[in-house]
């Protein structure tokens, strides 16, 4: 499969990338592991690719001013193996190590995955549960978009044209915070049929996010209300599962019907809550 012909520009800085995106039909190329397959199927036909892989400022993972900052160009493998992430945001490392396969993890990036916003991708649930902000840069400078405002629908985000994700910023969780990511994978693609990310803070506040279940990943406030600030017990887990995935449009495909997917979401929420109990 051969993509439609396009122009190619490799850039070294974010400013250069923003300037290069002036043409409406330009696309950013990071790891290329979502974009290139779509281009090969000709589902996507950009006239120009702006390759940001060489931008040094987009790499790296660090702690800065009370936040964990993950460069948008960090690969899934970078994050899965990072010491800081393993110690302070362990479910990011677990989730990253469950994405696709070794080859995909070696090239796919967190920024690319978030911008693509596949309804079955893992990162959206993780950034939602971690109260992350997506830092983006455009011709008017930088701004932060809360993860909860970022995903707007199937493959849709609140990114504007000419904006590029530069980092993912997560408040450093208080000592004693527990996290879990539980996923039922599509056996061939390893995309999530259902993925449930949970972050439980020492004060009992509990964030719950799902991916794979609906048009876009979402925070489940009904389920959160059941367990937040309360002891996690068999009863409260059962009650949270009962309250979960109500009032959302549930996806259905040849692999998992609406009913089955809904059931799986509740089962995987239970597993995640048991893991943070």
């Amino acid at each position, binding site marked *: 499969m051969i993509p439609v012909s396009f122009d190619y520009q490799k850039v070294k800085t974010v400013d250069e990338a923003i300037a290069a995106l002036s043409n409406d039909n330009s696309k950013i190329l990071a790891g290329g592991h979502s974009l290139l397959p779509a281009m*090969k199927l000709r589902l996507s036909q950009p006239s120009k690719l702006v390759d940001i892989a060489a931008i040094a400022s987009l790499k790296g993972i660090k702690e800065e001013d009370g936040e964990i900052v993950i460069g948008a160009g960090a690969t899934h493998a970078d994050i899965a193996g990072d010491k800081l992430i393993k110690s302070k945001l362990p479910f990011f490392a677990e989730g990253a190590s469950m994405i696709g396969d070794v*080859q995909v993890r070696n090239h796919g990036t967190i920024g690319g995955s978030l911008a693509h916003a596949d309804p079955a991708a893992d990162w959206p649930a993780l950034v939602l549960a971690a109260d992350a902000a997506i830092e983006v840069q455009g011709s008017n400078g930088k701004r932060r978009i809360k993860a909860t405002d970022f995903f707007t629908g199937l493959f849709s985000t609140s990114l504007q044209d000419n904006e590029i994700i530069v980092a993912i910023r997560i408040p450093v969780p208080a000592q004693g915070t527990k996290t879990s990511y539980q996923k039922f994978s599509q056996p*061939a693609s390893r995309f999530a049929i259902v993925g449930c990310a949970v972050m439980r803070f020492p004060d009992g506040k509990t964030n719950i996010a799902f991916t794979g279940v609906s048009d876009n990943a979402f925070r489940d406030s009904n389920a959160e209300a059941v367990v937040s600030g309360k002891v996690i017990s068999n009863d409260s887990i059962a009650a949270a599962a009962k309250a979960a995935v109500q009032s959302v449009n549930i996806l259905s495909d040849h692999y998992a019907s609406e009913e089955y997917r809904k059931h799986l979401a509740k089962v995987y929420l239970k597993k995640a809550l048991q893991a943070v109990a």
Partner: protein
Amino acid sequence: MSTKITVTVNGAKHIDKVEPRLLLVYYLRDVLKLTGTHVGCDTSSCGACTILVDGKATKSCTMLAVQADKCKITTIEGMATNGELHPLQEGFNQCHGLQCGFCTPGMIMTAADLLKNNKKPSEEQIRAALEGNFCRCTGYHNIVKAVQYAADKMSAPRARKTKKEAAL
């Protein structure tokens, strides 16, 4: 519009002008005539096209040749040294790790990435590492054995012995 790239493939430097849409696997096969790297599914699923890009296992059907500019690439043709098979190649031979052989180059390149970071992988770790490589013939058992064979051989103090032998 074509773009100039400089790549080092199996130790040899190549400078070529390529169309940006040319996939790396077709650059290797059609331009450099290195046909040991196979195109299986062409959809990033099967891993038959796996090569090492700067040491990392990579599906070459999911990378543009222009993205590989200034990179070091190793393909299956670069595994043997001076006519001597790489321990992984020897392992697949000795353990009957293949039947039709179509997936083998990709299997070997992914396993090479694994063994670089993990000298003594468990069976479970080998299976996890090869998750992105499909084999439709063997049922994977002998592939796992082949990787274990290579891990054992590579960790044996063979090089030292050879040096000693050479001194004698």
